[in-house]
């Protein structure tokens, strides 16, 4: 059977419409209009893995809150935007969420380029955006009283973490090599630790960057071997980290390992479950670990039928401990949860006892959640210390 082009195009359009129709589901709510929450991340492109995590987290959260009757009786309705990790697409995603999906609040954008593109748009459109993971150091100079009253950020960037983590490292190390992923997260962190090391007297022996998805680290590991630091600071995520660790051990390297990213995580341990002690001794500075909410972790695995959770925790933190309390406060105070009242509530909320620490935005709209030091020990995760991050 020859497929004529007409047939093929008809099939194509049909598929398209079907795929589109799947995305439109309006929930009927018994009391009060639903509160529309938009989640924006990279759903396509090289970083699509983060979008998947954000989406799943959002769906679980919506089910959880709506199962309890919503927030103050108002159901949560989700919309998703795809920023493909780039600023241009982030502009499109935000505009779609605001003008087409009519969201009341946005959580996103995960990637710094996308965040930077989105910031002027949320200001123009006057919709509150809670940044959950963007780590570009410039963001702090741009939000809150620094020029954008509509943007808030829950996660710290490495400029905020580096001093404390460097101080911790200095207790047992004099020379360090940095090995960082070649994106906004890795580059920003490397610069921050370079500065922080100078303050605590650690000598930065070398800095190497790798592209994510490039799984051959031997050449650079040989360089690290040559540079011979006492410790290596890894700025990488678990998906790269597991391959990296194998090659690290293959080359017989024995340096003390520190990390920023997602190395001391269940995801990493799952990837190396055939050699669970491969990264014993690694200490990571992070803000989330399964021990903070084991029920959530288990629920995730049961729901999505995956062996381990990846990503999504930061979006969940942003929703649970910032956006949801703000929505509640907005309704309590004004009876309404719209863009302006949610924005005002975000400025005022002070949630002291969350698993990640106190959630309160300062006048630069930055929250200061706790830094956790997590160690991989005996193939398990162990929380060493909980350190509040100082403004």
């Amino acid at each position: 059977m020859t497929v004529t082009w007409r047939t093929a195009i008809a099939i194509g359009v049909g598929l398209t419409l079907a795929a589109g129709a799947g995305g439109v589901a309006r929930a009927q709510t018994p009391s009060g209009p639903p509160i529309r929450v938009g989640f924006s991340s990279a759903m396509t492109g090289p970083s699509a893995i983060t979008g998947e995590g954000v989406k799943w987290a959002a769906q679980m959260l919506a089910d959880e809150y709506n199962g309890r009757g919503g927030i103050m009786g108002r159901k949560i309705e989700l919309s998703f935007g795809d920023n493909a990790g780039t600023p241009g697409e982030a502009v499109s995603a935000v505009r779609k969420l605001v003008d087409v999906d009519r969201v009341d609040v946005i959580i996103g954008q995960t990637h710094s380029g996308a965040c930077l593109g989105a910031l002027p748009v949320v200001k123009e459109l006057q919709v509150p955006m809670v940044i959950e993971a963007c780590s570009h150091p410039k963001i702090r100079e741009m939000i809150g009283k620094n020029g954008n009253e509509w943007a808030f950020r829950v996660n710290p960037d490495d400029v905020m973490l580096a001093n404390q983590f460097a101080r911790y490292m200095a207790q047992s190390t004099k020379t360090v090599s940095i090995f960082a992923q070649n994106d906004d997260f890795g580059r920003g962190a490397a610069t921050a630790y370079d500065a922080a090391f100078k303050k605590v007297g650690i000598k930065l022996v070398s800095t190497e960057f790798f592209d994510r998805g490039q799984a051959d680290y031997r050449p650079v590991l040989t360089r690290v071997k040559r540079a011979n630091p006492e410790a290596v600071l890894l700025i990488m995520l678990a998906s790269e980290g597991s391959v990296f660790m194998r090659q690290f051990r293959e080359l017989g390297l024995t340096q003390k390992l520190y990390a920023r990213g997602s190395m001391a995580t269940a995801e990493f341990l799952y990837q190396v479950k055939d050699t669970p002690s491969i990264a014993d001794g690694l200490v990571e500075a992070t803000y989330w670990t399964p021990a903070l909410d084991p029920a959530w972790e288990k629920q995730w695995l049961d729901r999505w039928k995956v062996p381990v959770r990846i990503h999504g925790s930061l979006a969940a933190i942003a929703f649970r401990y910032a956006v949801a309390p703000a929505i509640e406060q907005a309704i309590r105070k004004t009876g309404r949860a719209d863009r302006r009242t949610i924005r005002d509530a975000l400025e005022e909320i002070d949630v002291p006892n969350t698993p990640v620490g106190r959630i309160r935005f300062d006048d630069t709209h930055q929250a200061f959640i706790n830094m956790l030091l997590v160690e991989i020990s005996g193939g398990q995760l162990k929380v060493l210390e909980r350190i509040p991050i100082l403004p």
Partner: protein
Amino acid sequence: MTGVRAAGWAGAAVLLVALPWLVAVALPGQERYVLHVAVFTTLYAALALSYDLVVGHVGSLSLAHPAFFGIGAYAAALLATGAAWPFPAALLAGVAAAGVVALVLGVPLFRLTEHSFAMGTLGFALVTQIVATNWVDFTGGPLCVTGIPKPALGALRITTLPGFYWMGLVAVVAVGLLYQRLTTFRLGRAFHAVRDNETLASAASIDPLRYRMLAFVIGGAVAGGIGALYVSYVGVLCPGELGVSLTVALLVMVFLGGVGSLRGVIVGAVAFTALPEVLRMAPTWRMVIYGLLLLVIVVRAPEGIEGLLRRGGARRRPASTGA
């Protein structure tokens, strides 16, 4: 041009210029989004036209276009943020930078056979993206170029969506006029001679290298200019925007619409940029459908939508005087 056609053109022009008001009336509450899509559509249409000059009219399958777009974008962005160049100067710098690189690159590249030319341009595009990502001291790398100022020409400042839309409209009209001028009359015929039968063309003393270079350099320079306009709209430039996905987008636009045809390419650009927004499908599925669509189109209907339109027109008017 007959009176009826002229009236048609004038009507279309009025509609296009008045789009911001029409949208506000037709889709109240969504006009900002529609205008944003329109900005991207006009810029992509202009970019696709500049690409079609090279691919459609001299028949050189260049895969380097994202690199020229990126070079223009970075030149304009860095000069505007680092050296406070005013918008018109930054725009010209973007055009010039891309054009010069195209000139320098074109000379050795065009000595290659077709396959090697394609791979050479692809190699260049990849190296450009790698350099943009890793030469952090110069381009900022993954930390991006931020704070790119909005366009300002003397007292005229473009800060609103309608303003950007009109900027895009001016761009696509200007590029369209340039495209028309280059692809008709003697110059157009020379291009097509080189595309369709290079040996015959040289025998007729039409130097293929000269004409290929002309199309390549102009196409590259225009792409650089569009890059400069793009960053003035988005305000931020990251190296990820120079990737293979832009090549794919351009190929889809040009081949879906109709390679070698002004109307076709513009239709393709509109379909590619605006349609997904209208249809609102899951993003990964969208990519699968693009792939399948591109495959089917290029195999079954290589003239794209333009070919369909032409055939439809010819059937309706058997004694056709041309569309």
